[in-house]
Structures are given as C-alpha cells and as structure tokens.
C-alpha cells in the first residue's frame, strides 16, 4: 500500500526578479513502512517539498496524497522533525514531547506512558523534567524525534535533522534513527544533503537537482539491516554513493 503518493507536483515562487521554479513536476511514491531519503544540494527545493508534504505550503500544481487523501492543510497524522530541534524553552522535556497531544487535545493521561516509552526508546529516561538548555544538541534532537512520534503519525517527515550536529554525534544519531525506525516501522521521508547519510539510512534514495527542482534518479539501496557504521566501508556501499554523486557532477554541482 502506498503511504505517500506525489503526483506531478510543481511549486513556483514569485520574487522581485520574476518567478522561481522550486519544484518541477515531481512524482514519486513511498510505500507503507518504507524509509526514503531525498538528497540534493542546497537550493534544490528540498525544504519546499517538505513544507508541501507537511501541509504548511500549498503546491502550485499537482498534488500530494497521504494514505489516499490529498494534503492541502496541516494534518494531524504527520510528524515533522526540523533542521533545528525547535523545542519550546519554557517547557521541560516531557512537556515538549507532549506538545502535539496538547495541541490536538488528545488527553495527556493516556499519553504519559507512551511518552515515557518513547523517551526510553531514545535513551532519555531521567531527563523528562529537564529543560532544553540543559541538554546537548544531540539530546535536543532526540526530544524532537520523540515529539514527532508521540501522536503515532502515519508518516515522519525529517528535514536535515542532523545537519547542525557535529560529525560524531551525527553518526550516532543515524544509528539511533535506524534503531527507532526498525522498532516502529514508520514511513519516513528523510531530507538531507549528505549522500552517505542518505545511502546509509534509506531503502530508497531520491536524487533531486536544483533550478528547477526535479527528481533525476530513484536508487534502491539493497544493503541488509541493521546496518552498522562499518557498512560505509563495505565494498557495496561506495558504488551507491558514486553513482549518486556522478549525477550531481554531471550537472556541474559541487556539493557533498
């Protein structure tokens, strides 16, 4: 069954110097429980795509559907993880995690245990009463992931969630995300500009090129899970990275 179906999606922005085509006739689908990464250099419309899928930006043409219904306005069955953790500093960890429950009036009582289970999944037990400033960047982003999962959404949208972390923490978070995904089997759309990260995490990598943003390749990653970090040194890993990078080189783009 298709979780996400994107059909002929285009987005135009009008700026002072005329219109800019951020996305041009994008079509793809994501199966239920699949982990799909979208990789592309900056300015390729990755964030535009995410905002459209999150329902906070309307498309100019075409449509995106989630479990069969078109995404036109923000929906309650989507969890979003942004580039920065975006935690509210006046709420402690637990209250931040329960924000979607408060907003959607789902009742805290029934969700306290779910929140605690999720916090133990991301190894943050004992930190529920702490405030965001007391946590490291990696821990903050784990809180953000927990918050995105609390209302049991049909799809998890992640917009370069580990881009602001240092390389070591980033690798650690990649491992954790894989562990969480293997345990929860959510449908994930993961946006990144790091090709190795995309290949390491995803079942499928969509290659997006900028100006106008369009999908030029759809790569199946057939590396068995769970994948350890050493996978990146395995002989089957490099060809994926090479073939994706070649597509950007061919278009004259120098970006990771």
């Amino acid at each position, binding site marked *: 069954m298709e979780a996400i179906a994107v059909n002929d999606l285009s987005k135009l922005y009008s700026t002072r110097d005329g219109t800019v085509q951020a996305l041009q006739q994008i079509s793809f689908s994501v199966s239920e429980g699949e982990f799909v990464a979208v990789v592309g250099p900056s300015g390729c419309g990755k964030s535009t795509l995410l905002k459209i899928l*999150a329902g906070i930006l309307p498309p100019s043409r075409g449509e995106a559907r989630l479990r069969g219904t078109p995404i036109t306005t*923000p929906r*309650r069955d989507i969890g979003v993880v942004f580039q*920065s953790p*975006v935690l509210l*500093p*006046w709420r402690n960890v637990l209250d931040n995690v329960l924000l979607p429950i*408060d*907003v959607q009036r789902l009742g805290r009582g029934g969700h306290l245990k779910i929140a605690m289970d999720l916090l133990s999944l991301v190894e943050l037990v004992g930190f529920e009463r702490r405030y965001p400033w007391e946590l490291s960047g990696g821990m903050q982003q784990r809180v953000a992931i927990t918050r995105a999962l609390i209302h049991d959404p049909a799809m998890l949208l992640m917009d370069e969630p580990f881009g602001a972390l240092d390389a070591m923490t980033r690798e650690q978070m990649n491992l954790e995300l894989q562990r969480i995904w293997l345990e929860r089997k959510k449908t994930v759309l993961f946006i990144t500009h790091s090709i190795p990260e995309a290949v390491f995490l995803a079942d499928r990598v969509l290659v997006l090129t900028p100006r106008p943003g369009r999908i030029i390749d759809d790569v199946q990653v057939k590396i068995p899970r769970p994948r350890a970090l050493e996978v990146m040194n395995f002989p089957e890993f490099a060809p994926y990275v090479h073939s994706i990078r070649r597509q950007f080189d061919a278009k004259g783009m120098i970006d990771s």
Partner: protein
Amino acid sequence: MKSLRNVALTILLFCSSIIAWELIVRIFEVPTFIFPAPSKVAMALWRGFASGLYQKHLSHTLLETVLGFLLGSALGFFLGTAVALNRYVEYFFYPYIVMFQSLPKVALAPLIVVWFGLGLKSQVINAALVAFFPLLVNTMVGLKSADEDRLNLMRSLAASESQIFWMLRLPNALPFVMAGLDVAMIFALIGAIVAEFVGARAGLGMLIQSMNFNMDVSGQFSVLLILSVVGLLLNRCILLIRRRILFWDPSEKERLERERIAL
C-alpha cells in the same frame, strides 16, 4: 572567600566616600543650603521619620506609583496585544500611538491636574500614562517576534491561531513584557513625582517642592535618598517576579551568572 572580600570592599568604598563627603563639606565650609553634609542629611531623615511626616508622604507616593504602574502596564499590555494580533487595529491606531509616543508624557501633567484635580486620581493617571508605553511597545514586539521555525512547528501540528497565541506567542513575548515592566516601574515613579511637582496635596514630590521653597536642602537630599531606595526596591520586586517566571530565558541565566561573579 572571594565573595566575602568583595562585600567588605563594597562596604569600605561606601563608608570612605561618605567620610570624604563629610570632610570636604566641613573643610571648605560649604553652606548647608547649597550642599549639606551627610550628617545633616541623616538628621533630616531621622526627624522626618520620627515625626511621621515621611511615612505619610512616602505611602502616598508609593500608592500612586503602584496603582499607576498596574493601570498603565495593563492598558499597555492589552493594547499592545490588540495591535500585534489585528492588522486593522495596527493600521488605524499605530500612527497615533507613534505620534503620542514621541511626546514627552510629563508635559501632559499640568493638563491632567486641570482635568482631574489635585487628588490621587491625577497622579495615578500621570504615572499610568508614562508607564503605558514601554509595555505597549514591548508587548507588540514580543508577540510579533515568534521564531519562524516554531511557527512552522505549530502549524505542522494543525494548531489553531488561538493555540499558537497561548502556547507560543505569549510565552515567547514574556521576556519582552518583563523588560517592559522593568522600565514601566521606574517610569511610573517618575510620572507620580512629576505630577506631584505640578500640583498635589501629598507625596514625596510635593514634599521636595515645599522644602525647596523653604531652602531646606538637607530635607530635599533626605527625600531624594528615600526615592532612590524606593526605586531600587521596586525594581528588585520586578526582578524577583521576572526570575520566577523567566527561569527558562537565556538572558535570565546570563544575569544569574553575572551576579554570581559580582558576589
């Protein structure tokens, strides 16, 4: 150990400057009606409090200040909220607000005395007028300064506008509002004193005026001393409230750090 030494140094510095002041006034025989020695000021202070005169005027000024502060900041907060939330209110009212803001509010004091008389009412109104603007401007800026990422987060959760206000905009504006209250408190005191200068039956400002007519400069100094202590204490009250409410604010944590160093 270091904190103890700093406290000792502070006391030493204070005492030595008082002694220096006393000595300079005595050696150069400065007349009391120009610049009184600290001993004269202390005596005036003692006399004032012993007779109950200062308590009476002090309580009057305090009442005006606090009432004016509450009234002015409440009005400023609500109007600031209305302007920040409603484009029409902003469009139609903001030009007048800006115009009115550039006016020195104390210049309105004589008019207010004409309209509301010499009683408590006109001093409270004057204090409120002066305290009003810091709150209005800060509330407006605070409510509009919600981070785009946080707004996107709330929108992605399908939050309604009123939820975004209560869960995001309002707490986000609190540091600004508290900074506004900080200023408004002192402004209210200024407004009250100026109103008393212009015309009042009681209050420390009125007392300063009458002492001035009588060339009682030591008395004026003693009242000025009271006023600065009052200002300091009122400011401390706001800081205490601020610390309780804004424990999560980064600037509040910096302030705590600084104070730890200072002590």
